[in-house]
């Protein structure tokens, strides 16, 4: 089982253990709240939507972005008369990006009688709550967490509206083909997240057949000198390099690659999309660096108005996953409207039945696995001031 955190920092082994333990616990104590709350909410009160997000701990910055995005959608839908005449109500709990805390928080939400879940940021904290919601009959539309493990859980109540590792690899391949790459060298840092992404890319590239993978190797994370690995890359004479690990090593490898004479494009995964990347790589080393990243509001076409009303409502700019959380609420509401009910099976049917529903990442249709059938990732490049900006949204 791989816990691939959907964030910049690798999931600590301890957290993975805790998540595994929590999974077991959740398995033993499933439905602690006992109620089959999702199915028979009284049809007059508000429809409660639950959201687990991190408001404490290392990832706490993202909690508010998610909560505000979701709240904005709730307010808009309620102004338009709600869903079948019932208002929506957002119930937020802190999962602290921690498996143990998230299991407790999920049980609280189930006890509060939520009809659907629109949260989930850290994959390691989201995975253990899937069976809890599933058994309570709460369909989940997950805005941020995107580990393949969430898909592999095989629950038909789980839907992901952020791209998965497979889709990120797809975007990588799409861009490589777009710029005419023929010989690609792939480096990963041996963590689950990074290896999954690399393997997925290599698999898809081989299937596609145009590109030759001239090198597929791991580096040891946490070091400073990667000249030996760089030597191998140069020796394989690539015209495109893919790095799937985090920014700390990615920036050093980029610098050392260019020092060693490589002049082609370098594409990095979302673990490397961080302002520090440009600082560590240094001035003059990032012209040819691009990254795959989920679109943030400032990258999206036609989002100006949305950003303005968000700022007006919450007094700060939206951030990563604000748009996805906003969309998660809209997607659930649309499915409930179409189903004409908040019954679990009906809502799941409604979600499966969505066909080209317009969301920020493009028209949304779910695959049989509950993932996006297209897109989710865009190509970003590094601007003058070291921040990543949209280069290509891969929408054509």
């Amino acid at each position, binding site marked *: 089982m791989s816990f691939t955190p959907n964030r910049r920092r690798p999931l600590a082994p301890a957290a993975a253990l805790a998540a595994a333990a929590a999974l077991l616990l959740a398995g033993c104590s499933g439905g602690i709240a006992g109620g089959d709350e999702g199915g028979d909410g009284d049809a007059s009160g508000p429809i409660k939507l639950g959201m687990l997000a991190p408001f404490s701990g290392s990832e706490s910055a993202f909690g508010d972005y998610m909560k505000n995005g979701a709240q904005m959608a709730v307010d808009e839908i309620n102004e338009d008369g709600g869903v079948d005449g019932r208002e929506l109500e957002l119930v937020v709990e802190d999962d602290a990006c921690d498996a143990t805390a998230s299991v407790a928080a999920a049980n609280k939400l189930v006890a509060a009688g939520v009809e659907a879940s629109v949260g989930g940021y850290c994959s390691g904290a989201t995975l253990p709550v899937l069976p809890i919601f599933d058994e309570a009959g709460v369909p989940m539309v997950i805005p941020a967490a995107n580990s393949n493990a969430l898909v592999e859980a095989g629950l038909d109540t789980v839907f992901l509206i952020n791209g998965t590792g497979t889709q990120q690899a797809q975007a990588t391949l799409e861009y490589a083909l777009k710029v005419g790459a023929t010989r690609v060298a792939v480096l990963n840092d041996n963590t689950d997240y990074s290896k999954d992404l690399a393997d997925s890319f290599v698999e898809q590239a081989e299937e596609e057949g145009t590109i030759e993978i001239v090198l597929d190797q791991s580096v*040891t994370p946490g070091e400073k000198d990667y000249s030996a690995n760089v030597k191998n890359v140069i020796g394989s004479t690539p015209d495109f390099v893919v790095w799937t690990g985090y920014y700390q090593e990615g920036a050093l490898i980029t610098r050392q690659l260019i020092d060693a004479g490589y002049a082609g494009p370098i594409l990095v995964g979302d673990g490397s999309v961080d302002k520090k990347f440009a600082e560590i790589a240094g001035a003059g080393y990032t012209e040819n660096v691009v990254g795959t990243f989920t679109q943030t509001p400032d990258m999206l076409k036609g989002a100006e108005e949305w950003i303005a009303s968000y700022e007006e409502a919450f007094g700060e700019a939206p951030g990563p996953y604000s748009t996805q959380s906003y969309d998660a609420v809209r997607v659930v509401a649309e499915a409930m409207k179409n189903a004409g009910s908040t019954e679990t099976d009906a809502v799941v049917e409604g979600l499966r039945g969505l066909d080209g529903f317009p969301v920020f990442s493009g028209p949304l249709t779910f695959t049989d696995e509950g993932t996006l059938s297209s897109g989710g990732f865009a190509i970003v490049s590094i601007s003058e001031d070291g921040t990543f900006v949209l280069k290509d949204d891969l929408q054509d």
Partner: protein
Amino acid sequence: MGFFTDDLFQLVWNGLFVGSFYALVALGYSMVYGIIKLLNFAHGDIYMLGAFIAFVLLGSTIGLIGEASLPVLLLVLLITMILTGGIGMFVERVAYRPLRGSPRLAVLITAVGVSFALEYGIRQIFGPSPEVFPFRLSGGSFDVLGGRVSVTQIVLMVIAALLMWVLQLYVMRSREGRAMRAIALDPQASLLMGVNVNRVISRTFFIGSALAGAAGVMAGAYYGSIDFLMGFTIGLKAFTAAVIGGIGNLYGAMLGGLVLGLLESFGTFVLGGEWRDVFTFACLILFLSIRPTGILGARVAERM
């Protein structure tokens, strides 16, 4: 994969460059072990401290004069060496000296404790994310025998070589050096001969830590990013280098560092990045099972 022909020089050069960092750090390990038979596991973190001290010093210098250059870096290097040397002495005084008569295991565990204290102390001050070094050595590069050599690498290797040369002069030619070698041979007899054992041990810690600090500054200036765990890996590698060369032996530490660098460089080239450490440490195990004293650790009488 062409075998070595076009790549030989580049592989050797990369190995020697990384190896000179290993050698600088390995010296401190080896000297301390030679004198008081202690594996100072906090030694790698002194390297990390060196990088952070230089980071702060350079930051404030650039704040004052606006521009850093090689002379400024050399001055910072010198100050950092003195400071890390002082920290090394302090650690010995506070954590190791009270345990001088204790079982060796107690001192070893203390060393591990010191290592964690330094790492997470720095983490509290600077945070867990890597810091970007405010000044980087950059220069041109040129091709030699089909390999790429940069001016910066040459400058850093010259500095490392100079430091090592001064050290061996000191140990082999000076009175204090002779005292060091005497204590390594027999601390009891040295005490009876009127050698101030405590002072010599203090000095050994100072020198070893100063060299590690220097390596830390050089790493910061060359690679550009520093973090609170950067000493962990290189500490292990330097320890390995010291063992390969023959622990307690001055020349052995230098040689061991270069050998380890070369092993890594060739291992990566032949087997790929994933296998590098497997290859390197398999060589170490094989070598030590044949020759437990390391390359130069042959005759005890010549130690240090």
